[in-house]
């Protein structure tokens, strides 16, 4: 896969290469942000669960 991505980049002329990399960049950002959003959601829910557990044990 890396060979293909690099190969495409190598044969493209200047502006097309820049646009190609920009597209790769936005795809990477999308995957990264989706991962972050899901992970932060999970952590937030775990935090809530921990707080509820502490509250229950205090009672």
């Amino acid at each position, binding site marked *: 896969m*890396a060979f293909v991505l*690099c190969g495409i980049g190598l044969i493209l002329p200047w502006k097309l290469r820049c646009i190609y*990399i920009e597209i790769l*960049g936005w795809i990477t950002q999308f995957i990264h942000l989706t991962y972050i959003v899901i992970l932060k959601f999970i*952590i937030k829910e775990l935090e809530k669960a921990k707080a509820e557990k502490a509250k229950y044990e205090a009672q």
Partner: protein
Amino acid sequence: MKLNETATLFSGGTDSTLTAALMAEQYDKIHLITYDRFAFSSVTNPKINVKKLQDKYGKDKFEFHIIKVEKLTRFVFYERYLQNIRKHGFFLLTICGLCKLAMHIRTVVFCLENKIPNVCDGANQGMHLFPAQMANVIKEYGDMYTRYGITYSNPVFKYEGPQNIEFADRLHLERILPSEGGEQPVACSRETKANTTGRKLYELGLMPSENVKGTELDRKMQPRCFQFILFNVFVHWYYLADHTYDEYQDATVDFYRDKIRALTTHLDDFVNNGTKSRIYKLLER
């Protein structure tokens, strides 16, 4: 020659900002140069740190320049292209290194035209995968600058890379880890004691915290560029999958030595023939 002046390649990031601050203590005037080309955006972002530097050291101390290098960068990337593909293969995709090379070529021209004998940048040993921040490539740049009577230095090279920027650290997992007895995991309680550029900027009052690398503030201080994506695909996913770092370093130095030598002939042509040279025709004013 303006011996009391220096030019600094300035991205607006912590490394180049600290470089500029350190130069303010040595020189009367610092030319902060930010470069612009196709696929860069928000190139005026470094003005945020230019203002901070001016507020601290004096408005007249710093002169900010945004210089276009579109044509020159394209030339640096594609000169002797087929020959370079045969000899160096995918190293032609070390985009960050080639982009920086174009910036250095333009900086030589800037210094020659303005009679400035000193250049510095924020190259740091922590960024050792980037060609322009490898010690042996920096030596080649130094030799290139020396050829034209210019001193090239890297005042923040020995500073340590930023600590506490691991992905898990940013998530502050101590919020959800068990808190009954026992020690906190080391990653959650690690304090920054390292000698980093961020720490120094914080001590100088130029940054709000010791480590802003990778934060929203860091992104707003610098131009945006996604070109490093393909560079990372090549280095991490393709080359380092089958080679050691030493092999990568050696091949990188070979490639950049070759490139710098070829471009030096064009700079010599610029020095000797001025407006008739190839480099002159690539300059954008």
